[in-house]
């Protein structure tokens, strides 16, 4: 569905693709722009093949197909290395992740899974064994389109999370020993994974008390009591090992109850909810998770973050409210239905508004490509041939996003991070003077040098357009810029292309100028 570039339009944002005709009904094929915008929100980056696929199926049809796909895996890793020590080499896990992102069919599932893993963080910085990570990652893959409540329990009982935030072997406090239950998981599950620090209205705005102050979601005493409710879990016993009260770290399977270390007293948790005395570890856990799911704040808290990861850093309150409403009730009385939530996020009028090229750009819309999205988009757009020795998994670490190894439970960047004027801009937390230069230098290596000696890039598809600058820019815009390019970028790139001597140099100049531009780095 390519159409010729339009140069010299009066509007500062020219239209490169055919405009959808609103009056012509659903049979009209989606524009390149609409299809690629969806792919930048719902995949690891548009490619000509993917754009055509979306155009053939339509947005609803493509989403429905993606919801059914579950084709990517990260293979299990060995427990021990060749010397008999713990195998702490996560590079095969990182490599498989990138391979899946670049070539896997289940693109939407991977994108959503990754977004969820940026909320429910486990980091290789402190959980070292490589074999902990494939099972942890599969939870997000397999629950990406399931129910949030199921994901909450699955991750809570995942041994990698158990190790990371210390739910594993969190024994009940012993007054005689002067110890108390560890508060780590109780606090961070509330603060980061489910409800945040202050109560929210459905539209994501803070709920205020009668004096106009934000209302905390929980008190310190409730953290302490929730920690007590979550005591009494240990790792599964390794094969051929006898199960003990506190088993040593073992990262396959789920954690198991260790009832003698569960605090069976009554507790008062979030929402001033009384947890009955005498329950088992699992009964208390289910009670806690049900209580969290019943908090009105969870729907806007989770919805807003998923919108930020997929579509825009600063969604309107109405957009948040629409998605959070679906989180609360999918239309059939079910809350936490992720398939419904993801559909609501990606088909919302605010997400789709810019599909119409005749609208002026919304100055507050979009988000900076996080490093991984930049890298995968670059690799997909430049037809990268990954091999078993490719080291492109490592590129993100130059940009503040070392896969499976964020520096803390606060992930690579915070959903709360703001520009000076208060505008949320999470990805900018790791966009510094250093990483901005490093991004440009990764583009330079990809276009002019060797990005990675074991990953072949191929821009031959651009060469046939090389002799005609307008056609060349049109094709680059088709692959990388939703088939739209500002006049200013067209003009800048044209100057650079025309100064280049041969066909290859012209393609290189055009790709460099476009891919280093902030117009490309920010997904609109």
């Amino acid at each position, binding site marked *: 569905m390519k159409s010729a570039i339009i140069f010299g339009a009066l509007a500062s944002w020219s239209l490169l693709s055919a405009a959808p005709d609103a009056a012509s009904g659903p049979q009209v094929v989606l524009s390149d722009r609409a299809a690629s915008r969806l792919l930048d929100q719902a995949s690891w980056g548009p490619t000509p093949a993917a754009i055509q696929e979306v155009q053939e199926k339509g947005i609803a049809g493509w989403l429905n197909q993606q919801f059914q796909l579950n084709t990517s895996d990260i293979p299990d890793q060995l427990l021990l290395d060749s010397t008999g020590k713990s195998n702490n080499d996560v590079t095969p896990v990182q490599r498989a992740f990138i391979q899946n992102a670049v070539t896997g069919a289940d693109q939407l599932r991977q994108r959503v899974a990754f977004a969820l893993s940026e909320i429910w963080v486990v980091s290789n910085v402190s959980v070292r064994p490589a074999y902990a990570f494939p099972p942890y990652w599969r939870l997000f893959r397999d629950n990406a389109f399931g129910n949030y409540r199921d994901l909450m329990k699955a991750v809570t009982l995942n041994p990698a999370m158990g190790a990371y935030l210390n739910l594993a072997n969190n024994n009940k406090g012993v007054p005689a020993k002067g110890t108390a239950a*560890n508060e780590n998981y109780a606090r961070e599950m509330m603060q980061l994974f489910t409800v945040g620090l202050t109560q929210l209205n459905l539209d994501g705005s803070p709920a205020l008390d009668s004096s106009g102050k934000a209302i905390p979601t929980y008190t310190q005493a409730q953290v302490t009591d929730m920690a007590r409710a979550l005591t009494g879990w240990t790792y599964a016993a390794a094969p051929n090992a006898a199960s003990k009260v506190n088993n040593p770290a073992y990262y396959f399977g789920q954690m198991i109850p260790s009832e003698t270390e569960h605090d069976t007293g009554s507790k008062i948790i979030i929402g001033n909810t009384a947890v009955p005395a005498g329950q088992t570890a699992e009964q208390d856990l289910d009670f806690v998770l049900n209580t969290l799911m019943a908090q009105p704040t969870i729907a806007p808290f989770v919805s807003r973050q998923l919108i930020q990861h997929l579509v825009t850093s600063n969604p309107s309150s109405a957009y948040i409210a629409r998605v959070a409403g679906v989180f609360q009730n999918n239309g059939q009385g079910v809350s936490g239905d992720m398939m419904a939530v993801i559909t609501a996020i990606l088909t919302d009028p605010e997400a789709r508004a810019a599909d119409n090229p005749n609208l002026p750009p919304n100055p507050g*819309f979009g988000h900076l490509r996080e490093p991984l999205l930049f890298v995968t988009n670059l690799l997909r757009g430049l037809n990268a041939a990954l091999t078993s020795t490719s080291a492109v998994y490592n590129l993100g670490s130059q940009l503040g996003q070392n896969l499976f190894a964020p520096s*803390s439970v606060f992930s690579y960047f915070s959903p*709360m991070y703001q520009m000076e004027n208060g505008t949320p801009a999470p990805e900018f937390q*790791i966009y510094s003077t250093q990483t901005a230069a490093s991004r440009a230098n990764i583009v330079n290596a990809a276009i002019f040098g060797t990005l990675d000696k074991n990953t072949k890039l191929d821009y031959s598809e651009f060469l046939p357009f090389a002799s005609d600058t307008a056609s060349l820019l049109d094709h680059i815009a088709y692959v990388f810029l939703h088939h739209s390019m500002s006049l200013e970028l067209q003009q800048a790139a044209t100057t650079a292309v025309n100064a280049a*001597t041969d066909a290859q140099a012209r393609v290189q100049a055009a790709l460099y100028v476009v891919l*280093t*531009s902030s117009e490309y780095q*920010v997904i609109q």
Partner: protein
Amino acid sequence: MFSRRGFIRIGSASVGTLALRRFGLMPALAQSGPDYRALVCVFLFGGNDSNNTIIPLDDAHYKPYLSARAGLAVPTSAMAQVTDVTGAPYGFHVLLTELASLFTNKELAVVANVGSLVQPVTRAQYQGRQAAVPNNLFSHLDQQQQWQTSVGQGNSPTGWAGRVADYVAAQKMNSSSFPTVLSVAGNVLEGIGANTTEIAVNPGGSLALAGFSSSAASQARLNALTNLLNFNSGVSLVQAANQTLSMSMSDAKALAGALSQATALKTQFPKTSLGAQLEQVAQIIQVQSALGMSRQIFFCSLGSFDTHTGELNTLNTLYPQVSQALAAFYDATQELGVAQNVTTFTESDFNRTFQPTSGDGSDHAWGGHHLVLGGAVKGGQIFGQFPTFELGGPDDTDTRGRWIPTTSIDQYGATLCSWFGIPDTALPTVFPNLQNFAAAKLRFLG
């Protein structure tokens, strides 16, 4: 909430200013200008359990320490014991041995029980909610920001070092427009001012853009990139990204030019993350004159202090990194002849519960003990007051030993900034809550 300021800087990197300085209108390349001062922040992310960094060994403290800290208690045999200038006994964690020596040599001071406060608060006031306290106590993110902004209530878009940089810029205390705040640990709110922003550079890293030559084609491509940075697309995030790359490109030239004049340091830094960061800071301090800087603030960090379990083992790996890197850095400032001109200080999210967790760790707490190092520091002394080590006692918020701070970040920072050259009249702008405390400054400097 926290924020960055990627937008406004006062002026732009001016080759002219640098050139004038280089060619002799200013004192040429003195390694330590007479009026050079640098603050170096070492942020211990995750919340350092400073209850085990420095331990008072008088009976009134050490006896309750041994009983209440239970499995986390350090025996005196496993401490680097020191006495302060009054002869009172203290113990540093044994793996902070270099810092203990610096304390004994009066190069390092301890400031006890510092934390985020809006105003002084007692246990009764805290429990009765009768005094303003900072937002979201015991939350990592909030208390990290409070350390960095020195604003406990509400959402400050600027950090205190950034506000200092605003003052430095307004008073033209530096002869170039190179940023006053330089982070070797990524973007950080602390360095963002109302009119200024920080530069971030990786240790040993470069901001230079690769791939350009003097060929016409190459220059045309560079012009294209540069021209686009000035194009206002009207999309705010595009603007912000442009401004960051633009700043990177202009400061890259100044930094690379200055660092090309640096000579290798004789001081050996440990091969650790913090060692590399502080080595980079020392190199930049060496060329401060070439950069045109009289006042600089540096930001370094080390993470993984969130020790909810297995704490003793974790501290055994972290504390040597802190101690060895700080000691090497102090040595480097001596080598450069700027030990009197450089003050290094710690920050951390919060202290940790005095009462252990069941897994031999500790949970999030509040007031903690901090270290200040440098030739200008009144070392070998303890400033502020250690809390009463009693669970549920007068300094505890509850029953787990979350100490209510008795010195505010404002007072700690104001003391540092006053030495740095910020006049008393400007301190309230940098530390808006400072007026709520009887003593604006402690006496560990100046």
